[in-house]
Every structure is written in structure tokens, then in C-alpha cells.
């Protein structure tokens, strides 16, 4: 019963976010017809384009049409190039996962480790790194590792018809650009919970019994960190996916983020909607999993 309610709530949230994105996109100045018409377009030409793209239909009708297709996996056609959105979406998502998954894993591992090792030390440094805009960080990484040292390419081009796995070296800098701020953010967030767990009697007891620090961290601290860690991980997944739009632009990496950025600039509503739906779904599933982890840990480990 509880599970069904949770899923229903998640589905409603998903729907509301999609609707919100649709409404906001429609509120942006200009539309796909104006963009496609370009310069020196007569009002008649813009009107003809608008009619051809069915942009004249009421917003609710267009959203309804989009939604009924989307639930069946049909994300419609791009307003700009006329091609179906779904194949592009899935291929771009796959390309982005080559960045997002490693960056997310690195951030989880190193963020947690840093939180446990540093505890209250290094707070200022973490704040600075966590607040560093990705575009600055990515630019800095390019200057140092591509321009000066020449270790990695300055743009991350993927072979035509291939996958990023064919050229793993192009992944290093964008993954770092995503992972570094995420690591610092997670470490900063987990410092409080770490301090709480560390102050518990069973940790002090283990330390007194002479259990090595690493074992204490793994066996006694980490299980109690699981609920906040799972929640932070879910938020982090959304954060990393969002940050790809900036990082992918800097590295000319053909992923979901760049797809979203160009779709917004050309008011390509079906593409914007599809990307937003995927990102929203990832975050919602992450939050649901995090909640489940929390419940499971409380049942197993108890209140401490």
C-alpha cells in the first residue's frame, strides 16, 4: 500500500515537472518558427512555418499530444530538422552516461572518503571547489592538461558511428570537470552526518578496542551513513546530468547536455521535453531508491 502511494506520488511529480518545463519553454521569447525563419522573414512566412509545425494549437492540446506519445516511448519529431526525437535522445543519453556514470561513482567514493578522512578539516577548500563553475574548471583543465602538458585532447570528439569507448582518452577531462565539484559538494554535505556517527558510543568503543581506522570506517561508520549518502547520491545524479550541458559544450562532446542546450536555443520543444523527461525520471528513480535504502538500513541496523 505504502509502495503504491510512493510510486503514484512520483508519477504525479514527473507529470508536473514535464508540464512545468512545457509551460516555461512556451513562455520563452520567440519560437521554433521564428528561429527557423531567420532574418528578413515576412510575417506570412513565419505564419506558414508556425502552421506547418502546429505551433498555433493551444498549449494544453500540444502538451496532451506530447504526453500521449511520450508514455508510449514516442517523443515526436524535432521542430528544426524534422527527424524523430527518440533515436537521437537514446544515443545522446548513452554518450552522456560515459561521462555521468564515472563522474557520479568517483564523486560518491571520493566524496565519502574525504568526508570521513577530513571530518571538520578543509572546510574552506571544499566550499571553494564545490562552488567552482564547471565552465571555469573545464577551461582550466583544458589549459593545463591539453594545452600545456598535451596529455589529453582539448575537445572530446567521438568517432563517427562509434562510441566514446573507441577513444577513452577523450573522456578523462570532462569526467574530471564533472567529478571534482561533485566530490567536494558531497564531502561537504556528509561532514555533518559523519561527525554524528563518529560521536556515537559504538564507534568510540571500537576505537578503544584497537580496531584499525579503516575497519571502523567500513564496518561501523559507513552503514549508518547509507541513508544520507543514498539521498545525496540521488540529488547528485541530477546535478551531474545537469552539469553535462556546460561541460559537453566546452569539450564539444555530443551528449544529452549539448542536445538540451541547442534545443533550448532553437526552441525545439519536443527535444527539450524529451531531455527534461529523462533527467526528471533519473532523479525521481534515484530518490525512490534512496528512500528504500533508508528504510532498509533503519530496519537492519536499527536506530543505533
Amino acid at each position, binding site marked *: 500500500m505504502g509502495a503504491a502511494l510512493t510510486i503514484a506520488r512520483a508519477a504525479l511529480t514527473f507529470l508536473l515537472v514535464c508540464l512545468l518545463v512545457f509551460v516555461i519553454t512556451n513562455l520563452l521569447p520567440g519560437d521554433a518558427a521564428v528561429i527557423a525563419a531567420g532574418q528578413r522573414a515576412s510575417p506570412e512566412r513565419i505564419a506558414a512555418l508556425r502552421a506547418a509545425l502546429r505551433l498555433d494549437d493551444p498549449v494544453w492540446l500540444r502538451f496532451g499530444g506530447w504526453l500521449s506519445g511520450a508514455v508510449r516511448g514516442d517523443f515526436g519529431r524535432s521542430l528544426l530538422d524534422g527527424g524523430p526525437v527518440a533515436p537521437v535522445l537514446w544515443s545522446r543519453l548513452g554518450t552522456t552516461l560515459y561521462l555521468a556514470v564515472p563522474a557520479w561513482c568517483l564523486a560518491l567514493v571520493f566524496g565519502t572518503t574525504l568526508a570521513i578522512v577530513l571530518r571538520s578539516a578543509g572546510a574552506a577548500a571544499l566550499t571553494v571547489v564545490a562552488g567552482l563553475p564547471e565552465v571555469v574548471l573545464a577551461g582550466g583543465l583544458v589549459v593545463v592538461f591539453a594545452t600545456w602538458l598535451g596529455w589529453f585532447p582539448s575537445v572530446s570528439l567521438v568517432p*563517427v558511428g562509434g562510441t566514446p569507448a573507441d577513444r577513452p582518452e577523450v573522456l578523462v577531462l570532462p569526467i574530471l570537470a564533472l567529478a571534482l565539484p561533485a566530490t567536494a559538494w558531497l564531502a561537504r554535505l556528509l561532514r555533518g552526518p559523519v561527525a554524528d556517527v563518529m560521536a556515537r558510543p559504538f564507534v568510540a568503543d571500537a576505537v578503544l578496542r584497537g580496531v584499525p581506522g579503516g575497519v571502523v570506517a567500513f564496518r561501523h561508520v559507513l552503514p549508518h551513513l547509507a541513508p544520507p549518502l543514498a539521498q545525496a547520491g540521488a540529488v547528485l545524479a541530477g546535478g551531474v546530468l545537469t552539469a553535462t550541458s556546460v561541460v559537453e559544450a566546452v569539450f564539444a562532446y555530443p551528449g544529452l547536455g549539448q542536445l538540451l542546450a541547442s534545443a533550448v536555443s532553437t526552441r525545439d520543444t519536443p527535444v527539450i521535453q524529451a531531455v527534461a523527461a529523462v533527467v526528471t525520471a533519473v532523479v525521481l528513480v534515484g530518490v525512490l531508491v534512496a528512500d528504500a535504502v533508508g528504510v532498509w538500513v533503519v530496519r537492519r541496523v536499527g536506530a543505533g
Partner: protein
Amino acid sequence: MSLFSRRTALVAVFGLVAAGCAAPTGAAQGPPVDGGTLRYGAVAAGGGSAVADPHGSLFNESDWVRMAALYDVLTVPGRNGEAEPRLATSWSSDATASTWRFELRTDAVFSAGRPVRAADVLFSLRRIGAKAAQNGGRLGTVDIAASTAEGDHTVVLRTSQPDAELPAALAGVTFVVPDGTENFDQPVGSGPFRLSTMDSQAAVLVRNDRWWGPRPHLDRLEIRGFADPQALAGAVTSGEVDVAANVSPAAAKTAETTGRLTVSRRPAAVAYPLLMRLDRAPFDRPEVRRAVKSAVDRQALVDAVFLGYGKTSGDVQGGTDIPPPSSGDAGSTLAAVGPVVLHTTTAYPGMVSAATLLAQQLGAAGLKVEVRQHPPETYWTQAYGVEPLAMGYYTDIPFPVWVRQTALSGSAFNETGWRDPGFDASFASAMSTVDSSRRAAALTQLRSRMAADGGWLVWGYGDGLDLSSPSVHGLPTGAGFARVFLEDVWVRR
């Protein structure tokens, strides 16, 4: 000993560095070399995937380059803005330039094996005509319903009005597909290359050995779209692509100072004119327009906006052949005019810097100008062609095409409100003049008149700038769509 060897190593390193720097200036390029791949990068600001339909809206430069490689066109842009043969070997018109016969080559074949016939050309032109809203009226004056195919190798095009410049107006844009084609996922063309693989970012084309023209030197052509111009410049600098097409003057300057890349210049490819509306105060007064035109320092604008990659010009679209007006003392006229707002947009970086500098120069001459920026999404419909004073953007489309778009009484979008029945008549008369030297003289006269009386302030033209690795040769240098035809390029590895 160890000291000696270290010095030797140092000398060797310096020698290598010097050799690396000297390489691009080596003038001896020798005869063309066959083989190899050209990795061509161009800006592709919009769209998740590359456009497949050659007749609709081609939003990105990378799409144009791919279409020009896959498909043949009737005519291509040649030197001095004249059309050169491609699929059409010759053409002629009646005495009023209203009926045109294009004779087609007999040896062109589609990559699927079938010969190219007049019916294919007519079908393709009909498709382009039917998609006029999408492609911005690419067929121009052609009355496609009245046009016919005669036999297999003659197309007769009729125009809605006399158009002696039709072959030039159509140059580079009439991509020919097999009769009946509506799906372009597996493109079938008769151009110098055919498609090998393609994904949402790039396309790989291979040489079409059945092309009728001179055998292209390249084995493969890789065309990649870049959403970010900066990433494109970075890609050619780091050797990830061989050519970065249409880069900013700043990127070209940087490349020139580091000396590792070749900068190719296509003259008079772009302009950012100042547009004064003739139907709005204060620019409805001819003396105010003349004063503004004589008050600007054109060379300073070319130096600042195009970083010297350009040339000053007279005040009309279509090239730098009309001389600029003599600069004069405009202070008394301008001082009497109240403050004005100059509207501009971030659509092209040069439009903001040009507007800022123009405002400064006019301010120094006594006219107070406030610059107001608009986002590209709203500028072209809400400020450009609406406000009394705004910045425009010109590419090197043929002058008659531009006139019909925006300078006739009947133009659907008139950017300065230039409406003059006398001009319309003179233009129509020039366009029905079949004799090319008499027509050229008539057009020059019209252009001088526009420059003197119009609301255009075309202070200069910037070059189209391509960056390439020193191993790349034969990049197009012609005007207009000549830039997207790459079959003469070769690479020395």
C-alpha cells in the same frame, strides 16, 4: 661530454620548433596529392541531428557542406558572381530573360546507378518550390508550375518576372535528387561524394568514383558540426579537425600569431550594416542620413570589428565596388537631431562591437546614440526592420536576390522602408537586359543611387575566414555558396 650532448639536444629541439613554425609559410605546395581524409568542422548551432532533406530549411553550415558534396546542382557560383556550369552545361534565355533553357550533361549518374534526367531536375525544383516557406524562397523568381522538362536533358524554366541573373541566383542551391524521392535517410545523389556513415554529430562521405567531374583528390570527407564556435577553433588548433570553417576574426588573429595554422580569406563574405528607416524620424530626412554616412570612420570600424580582415565600402549590399562617400563635417546637422537608440543583437559577435563603435563615432560627431541589445530569438522580428535605427547582417548572396527580398515596393520584408516605384522599374528593366555588360552598368548605377539616397550604411565587408592545417590545400575562395563545395580540396600528409 654530457654537457655537449645536452647542448646538441637543445639545438635539435630549437631546430624542430623553428621547422614547425616555418612549415605553414612554405609556399611550394607542389602538385595535388590524391588520397587521405579531410576532417572538416563547421558551426552547427541548432538541431539534435543533421538535416536529411536537402530542400527544406538548412539551418547549419555543416548541412550545406554535406548536401553540396552529395548532390549535384544546376550551376555553381564562379568568379565575379557569375554562374558556372555543373549539372547544366550551358543555358540561354529568350530576349526578355523570362524563359530559360538549361542543357544538362548526359554523363551524370545517381549513386544508385540510374542516369540523371531532366525529370529528376524538375522534380527537385518542384520540391524546393513547395518548401519555399522552409527554405526562404530558394527558387527566387522561378515559376515552377510553368516550367517543363524537354526530353531527358533539357529543362525549361519560366520566371514570374524577367530575371537575367537567374543562373547566378540559383547557383549552388538546386540539389538534384531522383524523381519521386521523399525519404533521404539513405541519400542518393550524383555529387562528388556519397554517404558512408552518419550520426547526430558528424557524417563520413567517401569519393563517388562514378561522378562525371574531375576525380576528387580526397578518399574521405568527414563533416562535423560544432555547437560552440570556441570549441571548433580549439579542435583545429589541437589537430582534432583539419579545417575550421567560418571562424571569428579573433580566432584567425590568434592562429596567425601562433603560426601553426593557415588562415584562408574569402573576400567580402559578411557585413554588419547600420540600417536607418526612411519612414521614421529623424532618418526620414535625407540630410540626416547623409550626415550619418559621412560621419563614420569606416577604416576604424573594419580594423576594430573585422580586425583588419576586411575592406571599407560604399553603402549598399553586394560588394565593395561602390566607393564610400567622402567624409565631411556633419556636426551641425547631427547636433540638431535628438538622441537616438541603436538596436543590435548578440546573434553575431560583430554586431555588438560594430554598434558600440558606431555609437561612439556618431557621439563624437554630435549625435547621441544609446546602444540597446536584444537576444537573437526576438531581434529579427521585433527590432530589425521595425526600429528607426538598427544593425543588420549581410552574407554574400547575389545583389538581385537581396533586392527582391528587401528593397522593392512589393518586398514582403523591407528592412529600411526603401519604396520607390522609379527604382522598381529601373531594377525590372536591368533584370530584363540580357546583354551582361549593359546589365552590369545598369546595376552599378542603381547601386550608386541606393548608396547615396538609401538608409543603408554599409561601412565595410569582412572576409569569410577558415582555419586549416598547413597540409590542407585547395579550399574554396569564391563568393557565396562557393564556400561549401569541397571537391577540389587535397591533403598532403
